[in-house]
């Protein structure tokens, strides 16, 4: 049987883990400059320039 105290600890650990993974994902995988740029008024927006890793 899991006691209420243990259940709270497990819930807290899971929540911390999810928060840490989410923060790491947002920091490492999300291109914030792109997101912020797309929200600017068109006149102020930087140009998105597409390229592929060739020459």
């Amino acid at each position, binding site marked *: 049987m899991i006691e209420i105290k243990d259940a709270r600890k497990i819930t807290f650990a899971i929540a911390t883990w999810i928060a840490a993974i989410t923060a790491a994902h947002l920091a490492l995988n999300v291109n914030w400059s792109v997101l912020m740029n797309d929200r600017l008024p068109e006149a102020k927006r930087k*140009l998105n320039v597409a390229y592929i890793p060739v020459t």
Partner: protein
Amino acid sequence: MTDYISAYSQSGHLFIPRLFQGFPEIKEALMSGRMQAAFMVAPMAIALRAQGVPVKIVYLGHRYGSAVVVRKDGPVKTFAGLRGRVVAIPSRFSDERLILFRALAANGMSAKDVHMIEMAPPDVAGALAAGAIDAFSMGEPFPSQAESAGFGRVLFHARQYWPDYISCVLVVRQDVIDHKPEAVQVLVDGIARSGLWLEEKERARQHREHAADFVGRYYYRQDPKLLRWALLNPIDRVKYEPLSPRRADFELIVRLMVQTGVLDHPIPFEAFVDTRFAEGARTMTPWHYEAGDSKAW
């Protein structure tokens, strides 16, 4: 490169470079307006314009830098050995396909003698190593990848059959040209300055080594050693000057596109090229930037 060096200049980051893995995806992003400018193979840009997509070529990305590569220990020893073989190309609308047509004609063969298949550029070296294809016609650094890994051999470089060969060009949407011409000019100026920086006489080797390092790490996500090979073996394997779009070069591409069935009828140079930005960049000088500098000007 322009993005990296300009970040150290007074103006800072002016553009947002967006990495794609294939030309069809770039084409869709440009058509939908998600991308305002793109580097793409010249015939694809011409075909887009011919289909009524409002884009124009404003500058070149480089000259040369494409090659046909075969397996080092494979059966293809000479050009004639390509007969009946599977050759990967990046797109039906690519200069890499056209160079193959030119080479086939020069060797008394035709497109019927080889089996061309389209493949995303990052996949070709692996496909050649695995024996899924017999050869590929592709831009750098993929010929260098096969060569430096020891399983590929360059059968011929594009320059052998096509002097002043061009492949990737800078394409900009017409609405951006109309409403933000100054931004387009800054972009073209930056590319012109980057090209001159890479070709700067006795500094060229050093600049190319540095460019291989930061482009590999931050933009291409490839081993810098690979780009070093592509940029230095030999040093004129890829050229970054002159990059102004010339009428004769593009008329040849249009003619070859019509001959090889990817364009219904010729379209005039002015319909798909806007030369004003290249003319504006004519007086540009190389970046003043060395590895480790905190400023560029």
